[in-house]
């Protein structure tokens, strides 16, 4: 549901909160959850007794939560889509068990296509469901602001479209890059914070192709940025965007100059040697030694 917020004159000289992104697509989600690609077919049989309860809880969750907000900065002509991260226990469970797939945490992929049926890659099923749940709100917002029309006043005002978010919100921001392109034929910017892996390498390449700058700001010991796993055995999830690793930012310390490492354009995603070097030999996560 879009909140009825008057965005005021579009030539305002400051940023305005334009809308909350409340999910409204639970009916559509429920239909998608019935599709066989959400779970391994043999595993689905194990889930039938529990699936309806899980589905209902997920639908309740989707219709209850606010997922972010849209803001306009008229000074710089930037529209900012800000997505919310994980906060409640229910949300954490949904991250790990996207469709009640108790037998296949992490591993549920779902294919993603644009409106022209061009394949954009495969993504984590739970993240995709959250994105689909927000699609009606985004479409309604775009129509209201004329974002799909290159000649609209709103579009003429805007010089940049930015997607951002923390944790789960970062994952949704990555998917939002593709949504912006699909819905409004717009190349947008991505700045994610502590985001998990969202989809396959094919998805990452799609994000790079449809963004005018994709950055993944993280700490290399943040567990969230290491899931779902990137492994030849347990999955093919892959980071999107150039990594910006704030390796000296840790727990209660504050930022310091030169505290980040920016990976080169040629080594986005999983291949940044600079971050590997920082992480080499470190088997500590916060104060816990892992191995």
């Amino acid at each position, binding site marked *: 549901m879009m909140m009825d917020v008057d965005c005021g004159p579009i030539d305002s*000289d*400051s*940023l*305005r*909160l334009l809308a*909350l992104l409340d999910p409204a697509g639970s009916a559509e989600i429920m239909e998608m959850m019935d599709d066989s690609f959400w779970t391994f077919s043999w595993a689905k049989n194990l889930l039938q007794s529990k699936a309806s309860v899980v589905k209902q809880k997920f639908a309740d969750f989707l219709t209850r939560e*606010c997922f*972010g907000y849209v*803001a306009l900065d008229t*000074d*710089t002509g*930037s529209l*900012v889509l*800000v*997505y*919310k*991260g994980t906060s409640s226990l229910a949300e954490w469970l949904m991250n790990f068990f996207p469709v009640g797939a*108790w*037998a*296949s*945490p992490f*591993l549920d992929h779902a294919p993603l296509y644009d409106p022209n049926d061009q394949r954009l890659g495969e993504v984590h099923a739970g993240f995709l469901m959250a994105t689909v749940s927000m699609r009606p709100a985004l479409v309604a917002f775009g129509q209201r602001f004329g974002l799909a029309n290159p000649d609209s006043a709103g579009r003429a005002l805007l010089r940049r479209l*930015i997607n951002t*978010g*923390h944790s789960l*919100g970062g994952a949704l921001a990555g998917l939002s890059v593709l949504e912006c392109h699909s819905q409004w034929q717009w190349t947008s910017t991505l700045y994610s*914070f*502590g985001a998990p892996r969202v989809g396959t*390498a094919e998805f990452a*390449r799609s994000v790079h192709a449809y*963004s*005018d*700058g994709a*950055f993944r*700001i993280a*700490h290399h010991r*943040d567990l969230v940025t*290491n899931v779902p*796993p990137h*492994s*030849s*055995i*347990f*999955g*093919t999830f*892959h980071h999107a*965007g150039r990594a*910006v690793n704030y390796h000296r*930012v*840790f727990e209660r310390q*504050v*930022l310091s*100059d030169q505290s980040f490492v*920016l990976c080169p*354009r040629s080594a*986005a*995603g*999983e*291949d940044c040697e600079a971050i590997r070097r920082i992480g080499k030999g470190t088997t500590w996560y*916060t104060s816990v030694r892992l191995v």
Partner: protein
Amino acid sequence: MTTYSLIVILGSILSVVMGDRYAEATATSVPENTPDYDEGLALKLGVLSRLTYAVEPLRQLAVGREEDFDAIASLMSAPTYSSTREQFLAEASSRLPSLLSVCKREGRRGFFFFFPLPVSNNFCVQASE
């Protein structure tokens, strides 16, 4: 919980612990003509991202709490996106006491969890001190 579930969960944990060392590298690159990293913009977006955790205050924004509208407006109209960290923090600290108090509370809350949530939290905390 099936045996398969346990295998997958343990395997996933192992994959996280082992990191990328044994993962098959898959090259992805970003186009050469894309803009470079803008830390001033990142600071602002980090704060805005963190604010999403304050869902109820956001809902209140939507029903017209003018002072909070002004606070967000101040944040995003701070000098330019390419401003330095110090400029941004100074600007934010002087203009956004109410907004940053929310940000600080939300940021500090993150420290009590197992996950450090380091970057955006630190943006919030440092901007509010």
